[in-house]
């Protein structure tokens, strides 16, 4: 790609300057004409006429900021006659036919634009801009009635429902669920067997299959609190953070590369991923977890006691991770698109709201006026997300080191550059000019000393500081409402930075004038009187355990979302969750030890008619393993999974284009650590509904398509796992080999039919050409494809 490098100053001031040219509010008028004006005429006026005729400028006495001022004209009379382009000086001027009247003076407008202006005059110059001196038009759209929509269940404060009556040993969660089941004429299924329960909970809490040894130990564990003990062991395993870290990374649209148009490596994104894993393992309270991702750099709280403040900015990588059109040459638009992506992600991730809808107009369904959007947009416009807006722009990073060290490194860089400059200058002087000897003959003598100084400083160059993807504060600015979301249509008045108004007043101070407002936004999101954040996260956790949430539209709690199946249970859980100190592990304990979670998954013909979608949880829902779990399980049963924690598995240069054509997915570390390359899907993840890493994914689909079968039948990963699995069984005596194989893959021995079918296969004529080891491999491979292996039952 060739193009001149352009540098733009980043930050709010420039954006504000871009947005500073005129604009106004819509008045009622024929909507097609308005549309025509807004799309074809207003941008032309702003771009080609604004310099002299808008915003109080009246060159030649002409103002063009409303229909009235255009008709009033300038020093030489009216500029346009409605309906008559031929009689309108404006049209004569832009046609460039009259040498004495040419506008704009410096260049002729494109023929299409001239045609549009003619059309506009022909239509009678429809123009919704308010006349100067008149009161600003009333608000454009009243599609929603805020007072009514604020009564929507999700926006109301958390209720404190009474726990239903029930058997004394039944927990609150089960009582809520059972009350509903009984109402529907149903009841829970019986408990599942111990093997299935342990497999289920191990897969669920750690993302890994339970080993046959663990299953045997658990089956013979007769402690009364055996389940609790085993659950605690799993919650304490570092694998817990890996599994649930991935859960959050779906929402955070985590990736290691930018994707979109310029797929550049975000070489430090993994630090954010590791921060997520470590925070979840430490059971960081979720409100803190949320706050740090919005404004960790400002709170200065952090994971490890005694750690340094600078580390807390790692969490704000959340705001930088989004895909960006880095080569977009309309840089003001790029900045606004990035802000939009941030608002959309924050809205979905924490609030279950589609705030992004309000960029161009008031939200169609939810009480989110466009003004609220720009109040929030101002916060992100006052935040530095990009290091620069160069031709291919660069995302922001911050050094991971204490301030004095950062300063020391920066000072050294300055020193070195100055020394280099002195040397270069001297060398240039020593060469002389146009063959003439240097003016100062002593300059040559100074060069060795200058060289030595450069060498000395070079040798002292400090190691480059590690960096992390993070935002920082930029100068504070308020944005105006932008017509149709475009910076070419800015409103007149800036909207003070603030928060969505749909939750009413939450006692958080407004953004300080000298700061971005992220800190206040973080406090607002996690304030005890904000009911959305706890409802949304509790629902996400529920969904991860049961396949479906209590609200089945996990990223839309607005008016278009589904109603909760168990509203009292949701509010009870959300309230208790907050009172538990926002502890995710507390929530897991409630769920995993419940009767609902521990019941059998076997289909009940008596219940499926009344509850075909299992909305009332009359049985535990069978779920296909997520892509990462499936891969890790395949490697794990083959004894290949490398359980090293954290770090990165690729050695790519930061901010370089993703090298090579295929990304390196060959690592046998847990799937969590495979590079997430936005425009190169890992085939296993692509086939098995892995999360799209470019958008906040609230719920993965779980499809059944033949490419999944092709993958399991033929992918080298699976075939290789089968080979290794059989290798590990070589020492087993023939008589117990089948049992050993079944125990490895499914955590149980084979049944009679299975033993019989295995024997048939091993002696099948179609396998005559294979060695004994290969025949066993065919069998092992089939087990890896089986539903029992690929599903959580």
């Amino acid at each position, binding site marked *: *790609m*060739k*193009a*001149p490098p352009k540098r733009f100053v980043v930050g709010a001031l420039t954006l504000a300057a871009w947005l500073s040219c005129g604009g106004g509010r819509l008045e009622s008028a024929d909507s097609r004409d308005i549309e025509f004006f807004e799309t074809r005429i207003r941008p032309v006026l702003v*771009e*080609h006429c604004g310099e002299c005729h808008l915003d109080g400028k009246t060159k030649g006495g002409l103002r063009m900021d409303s229909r009235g001022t255009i008709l009033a004209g300038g020093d030489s009379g009216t500029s346009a006659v409605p309906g008559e382009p031929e009689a309108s000086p404006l049209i004569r001027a832009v046609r460039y036919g009259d040498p004495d009247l040419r506008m704009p003076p410096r260049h*002729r407008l*494109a*023929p*299409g634009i001239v045609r549009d202006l003619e059309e506009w005059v022909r239509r009678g110059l429809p123009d919704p801009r308010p006349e100067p001196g008149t009161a600003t038009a009333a608000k454009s759209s009243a599609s929603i009635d805020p007072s009514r929509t604020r009564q929507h269940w999700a926006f109301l404060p958390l209720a404190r429902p009474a726990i239903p009556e029930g058997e004394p040993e039944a927990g609150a969660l089960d009582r809520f669920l059972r009350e509903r089941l009984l109402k529907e004429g149903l009841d829970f299924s019986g408990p599942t067997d111990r093997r299935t329960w342990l497999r289920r909970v191990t897969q669920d809490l750690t993302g890994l299959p339970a080993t046959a040894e663990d299953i045997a130990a658990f089956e013979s564990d007769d402690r009364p609190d055996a389940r609790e003990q085993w659950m605690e062991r799993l919650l304490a395993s570092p694998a817990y953070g890996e599994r649930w870290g991935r859960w959050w990374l779906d929402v955070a649209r985590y990736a290691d590369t930018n*994707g*979109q*148009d310029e797929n550049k490596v975000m070489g430090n994104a993994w630090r954010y991923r590791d921060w997520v894993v470590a925070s979840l393992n430490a059971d960081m309270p979720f409100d803190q977890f949320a706050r740090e991702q919005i404004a960790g750099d400002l709170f200065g709280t952090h994971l490890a006691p005694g750690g340094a403040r600078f580390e807390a900015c790692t969490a704000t990588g959340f705001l930088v991770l989004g895909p960006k*059109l880095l*080569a*977009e*040459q*309309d840089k003001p638009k790029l900045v606004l698109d990035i802000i939009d992506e941030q608002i959309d992600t924050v809205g979905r991730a924490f609030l279950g709201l589609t705030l992004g809808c309000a960029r161009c107009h008031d939200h169609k369904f939810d009480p989110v006026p466009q003004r609220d959007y720009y109040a929030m947009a101002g916060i992100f416009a006052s935040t530095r997300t990009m290091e620069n807006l160069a031709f291919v722009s660069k995302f922001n990073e911050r050094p991971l080191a204490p301030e004095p060290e950062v300063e020391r490194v920066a000072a050294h860089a300055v020193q070195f550059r100055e020394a280099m400059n002195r040397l270069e200058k001297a060398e240039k002087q020593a060469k002389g000019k146009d063959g003439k000897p240097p003016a100062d003959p002593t300059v040559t003598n100074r060069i060795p000393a200058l060289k030595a100084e450069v060498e000395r400083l070079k040798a002292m160059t400090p190691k480059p500081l590690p960096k992390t993807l993070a935002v920082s504060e930029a100068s504070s600015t308020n944005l105006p409402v932008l017509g149709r979301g475009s910076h070419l249509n800015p409103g007149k008045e800036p909207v003070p930075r603030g928060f969505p108004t749909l939750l009413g007043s939450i006692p958080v101070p407004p953004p300080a004038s000298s700061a971005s407002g992220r800190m206040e936004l973080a406090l607002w999101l996690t304030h005890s009187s904000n009911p959305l954040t706890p409802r949304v996260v509790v629902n996400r956790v529920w969904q991860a355990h049961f396949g479906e949430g209590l609200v089945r*539209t996990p*990223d*839309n709690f*607005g008016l278009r979302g589904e109603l909760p199946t168990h509203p009292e249970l949701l509010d009870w859980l959300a309230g208790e969750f907050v009172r538990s100190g926002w502890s995710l592990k507390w929530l897991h304990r409630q769920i995993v030890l419940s009767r609902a979670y521990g019941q059998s*998954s*076997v*289909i009940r013909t008596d219940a499926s008619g009344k509850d075909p979608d299992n909305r009332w949880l009359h049985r535990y829902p069978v779920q296909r393993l997520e892509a990462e779990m499936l891969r890790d399980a395949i490697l794990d049963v083959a004894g290949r999974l490398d359980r090293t924690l954290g770090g990165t598995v690729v050695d790519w240069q930061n901010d370089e284009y993703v090298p090579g*054509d295929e990304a390196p997915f060959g690592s046998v570390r847990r799937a969590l650590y495979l590079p997430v390359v936005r*425009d190169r*899907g890992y*085939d296993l993840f*692509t*086939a098995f509904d892995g999360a*799209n890493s470019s*958008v906040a994914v*609230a719920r993965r*689909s*779980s*499809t*059944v*398509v*033949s*490419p*999944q*079968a*092709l993958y399991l*039948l*033929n*992918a080298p990963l699976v*075939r290789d796992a089968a080979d290794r699995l059989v290798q590990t069984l070589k020492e087993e005596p023939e008589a117990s080999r089948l049992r050993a194989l079944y125990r490895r893959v499914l955590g149980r021995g084979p049944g009679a*039919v299975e033993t019989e*079918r295995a024997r048939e*296969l091993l002696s099948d004529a*179609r396998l005559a*050409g294979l060695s004994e080891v290969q025949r066993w491999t*065919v*069998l092992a491979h*089939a*087990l890896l*494809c*089986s*539903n029992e292996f690929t599903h959580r039952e």
Partner: protein
Amino acid sequence: MRTDPIHPVAMKKGPREITRRAALERLGLGFGGMALASLLGRTEAGVASPIAAHPPHFAPRAKRVIFVFMHGGPSHVDTFDYKPILERDSGKPLPFAKPRVQFAQTGNLRRSPWDFRPYGQCGAMVSDLFPLTGACADDLCFLKAVHGTNEAHGGALLKLHTGSDVSVRPSMGAWISYGLGTENANLPSFITINPTLGHGGVGNWASAFLPASHQGTRIGGGGTPVDKATIAHLGGAWDPAVQRAQLDLLGDLQREHLGRVGAESSLEARIESFELAFRMQTEAPDILALTGETEATRKLYGLDDPKTASFARQCLLARRFSERGVRFVQITHGYWDQHDDLTKEHARLAGEVDRPIAGLLRDLKARGLLDETLVLWGGEFGRTPTLQGKDGRDHHPHAFTVWMAGGGVKAGFSYGATDEYGFYGVTDKVHVHDLHATMLALLGLDHERLTYRHAGRDFRLTDVAGRVVREILA
């Protein structure tokens, strides 16, 4: 649950009837029959396959699409948009303003290095870069004033393929798969051959929030030679006979398991998906091997010439997949990004594709497939009529040419015009959204009704825009 209007009886048979040997026997029936397709398009449990064929909104003019994508942005003023005034004024400055946002600075007007001549009854002017395609002019429908919104490759590709260069959206092939399903359940509904992995990469054939089964199946790309390219994991782990024995065992184990856990429909569907995979594994390699194509056909596409062989193979594969019922096939050729060296490089690139494209058009026509197949040709943008560097042109999303053929569009027709220099569209402009709306309309889909509810909103390929260009419908 949907019932099958064609084979209601077959739908009621037990699992073993449709699997295993029965399926092998059915392979003898060959491809493409609607009856077979609809039979295989759903599983025994009555769970419709996500890509089973659905009826369109209204009577379609085309059943399938072949998108011939020219990656990098071929120059419209050097190919299909003839501008005599540009020739006359070459070297002079553009007499009106350039766009507010430009990819890079360009200089004065620059004539085309190629001559143009009229072709066919319609007399369409085509440059000497495309003589053989030009000879098909009476089958082509030119859109001369197409415009996009993004001046960089990545954004422009995403806009063209997904309708959005800002947000992550399903690609047009995925929308069409979602809207119409597939005519042949043994094959994917959407195939993309040799796509670029950059400039949006997977995003250009992804399903985004649509179910994953609608994403494009990639064949090659990323430097894989086209004659080595195949569908991922299409066999290879075991000999077919061994794999058949393995599948027989697996099926038995699965059914035994199902007997224990109950008739969970997703588990039943998965049992069937293995049989479908096995059938795909049998069919697709034959298609990829070009089995059964005559010497004459191979020559027609240019497979006999090393210069054209690679793209010829893509074009021929497009026809083979398309005639077997694949709903949307995209083929990609590049890299038409001549910021410099335009004279040499555009000539080389056109030389690689002209014969294959003409071959595809003539072959489809000869087989009676052109009427029901919409062929779409274009790049992500055109190139500036003004000069960049010594011999280059810059990106130009403001006006460029796309042509269509077959599939219910007017033949030998041209719609829309650019100004005298080919810089801006002046009449009958067609935005990328309009192009999408029109393509869907040709397939019998109303772009305003083809929606998917995601995160509380009904999304469309055309977002909130799009006009069906009725003027080009035959």
